[in-house]
């Protein structure tokens, strides 16, 4: 039976064929909506471009006065003084020192918390502890900063070591460590839970204890996720502003003693903008140079963490 015969016997065919082919009726408004929604998504690209342009362009103004090599390799930062020097190494050192000490607290505690929540805790205990940790993550950083400045330094550190300065690295680092602890715990726990049951069961089947299974089987299997979590936490610690601004001081110096003050990159930005700064001055532009460096550091770490997961993720099948 041919189609042609069917078509001619049905008077509606022509009209139907017409409707099927050219229905511009609905297309117009659908297209407009799609474009509007796409514009929203593209705005995110605009944001990134905006960040890059602003930072680069203003930093460029800075580098007209101060050579890049002086900035990157100089070891004296006396920006707010007359004829100040702009060697950024003390700021970077401050940032990294704080981050490193914070990690000394956050990594072991966070990882152990993750193992506990994932492998040991009963669902009831988990339902109490996990929200508790999440609460910790939700506290604004200014509260942590206040805590570091007015409690950790005078009440804790000074009683252990009276030589502790009122502004010091350690107080800030402890506060930052506690702040990123839930982040490491939560992300690592996700990674641990993603390890399939069958792997655990295989290990138990060989007579391993819970401790051995958790630490020697599950944790290594989840390692890429854990490392990625740690890198993200470091990035967060590096970008942290209010805690270091409040607690670690504004003295940009190089020292190994964590009881001394040091200034972080973010702390410098706050210090400058807390006072009056003339637009167009070298100090003003230095904000963006430091900001650019900060942006590059955190971006590199974020990309590294994504790459790490993609590259080293265990294939469980």
């Amino acid at each position: 039976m041919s189609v042609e015969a069917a078509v001619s016997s049905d008077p509606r065919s022509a009209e139907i064929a017409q409707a099927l082919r050219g229905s511009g009726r609905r297309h117009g408004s659908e297209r407009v909506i799609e474009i509007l929604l796409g514009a929203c998504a593209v705005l995110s690209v605009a944001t990134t471009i905006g960040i890059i342009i602003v930072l680069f362009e203003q930093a460029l103004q800075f580098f007209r006065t101060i050579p890049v090599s002086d900035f990157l390799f100089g070891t004296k930062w006396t920006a707010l003084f007359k004829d100040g020097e702009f060697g950024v190494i003390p700021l970077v050192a401050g940032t990294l020192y704080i981050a490193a000490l914070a990690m000394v607290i956050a990594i072991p505690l966070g990882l152990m918390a993750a193992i506990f929540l994932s492998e040991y805790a009963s669902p009831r205990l988990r339902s109490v502890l996990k929200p508790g940790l999440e609460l910790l993550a939700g506290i604004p950083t200014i509260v942590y900063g206040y805590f570091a400045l007015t409690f950790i330094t005078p009440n804790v550190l000074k009683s252990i070591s009276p030589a502790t300065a009122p502004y010091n690295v350690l107080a800030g680092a402890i506060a930052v460590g506690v702040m990123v602890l839930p982040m490491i715990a939560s992300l690592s726990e996700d990674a641990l839970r993603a390890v399939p049951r069958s792997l655990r069961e295989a290990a138990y089947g060989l007579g391993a204890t819970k401790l051995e299974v958790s630490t020697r089987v599950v944790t290594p299997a989840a390692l890429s996720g854990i490392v990625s979590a740690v890198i993200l936490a470091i990035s967060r610690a590096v970008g942290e502003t209010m805690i270091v601004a409040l607690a670690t001081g504004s003295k940009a110096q190089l020292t190994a003693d964590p009881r001394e003050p040091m200034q972080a990159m973010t702390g410098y930005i706050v210090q400058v903008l807390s006072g009056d700064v003339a637009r167009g001055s070298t100090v003003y532009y230095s904000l963006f140079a430091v900001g650019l460096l900060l942006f590059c550091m955190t971006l590199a770490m974020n990309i590294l963490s994504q790459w790490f997961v993609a590259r080293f993720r265990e294939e469980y099948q």
Partner: protein
Amino acid sequence: MSTVLARPVVGTRPNVPDRSAHAASTDTPVIIDIQDLDVFYGDFHAVADVSFSVPRNRVTALIGPSGCGKSTVLRSINRMNDLIESARVEGEILYHGVNLNDRQVDPVEVRRRIGMVFQKANPFPKSIYDNVAWGVKINGLKVNVDEHVEKCLRQAALWDEVKDKLKDSGLALSGGQQQRLCIARALAINPDIILMDEPCSALDPISTLKIEDLMRQLVADYSIIIVTHNMQQAARVSDQTVFFSLNEKRQGVLVEASPTTELFTNPRDKRTEDYITGRFG
């Protein structure tokens, strides 16, 4: 589960009811003519070179072992494969002289005229009334909505069971009722053709038989194409049966398309014979 009825004793054939008055003959007009249909998922050639015609106001059953492309072919007819990123459909699906597979043809218009009922009943999380009425509303059909909803629910043999609770959620119904609601929903937009993708596979035998009876009533006004893995069902319900299988390259191919009675009593292809007598599949 309707699979209870699925597998006959090896060596016997399913019983086919006498429907000679209704048999798909060469005089029956054709509503869909599929020619040289190929479907690709990415690089994988899933369905190869399928051609058959669908008679009007009849039930056509697509049968075959799982994975041989029956659902894929069905979904090509109402352009549902457009929703899958990697899917590519080539060939012609002729309907009223138009190739539905043509890129210029609007899939939304196609689906307005060719309705679908899915394997697992998926009523909207709305009231029973709104489930049926929504399609009417968005397509701007000029009907009295209340009357139309009643009519469709009656056609789906569901009206008596829900007429007092139209405002209740569609999800509160039993599995069989939900599926009939989905049928009513499909009928609401006045399609020509109704596609059914294993509509009874998730239902108990009683609900299954209710829906099969429904199908025989609906053919007076609609053309129905049903995919089923249950041969008994195909034999009971359809006027024409199309048998699919996998070739050596693991592609879905059409083996045989015949009036149901012929296919089950006197199949032309040995593969068909093997399948319907249960030697494989």
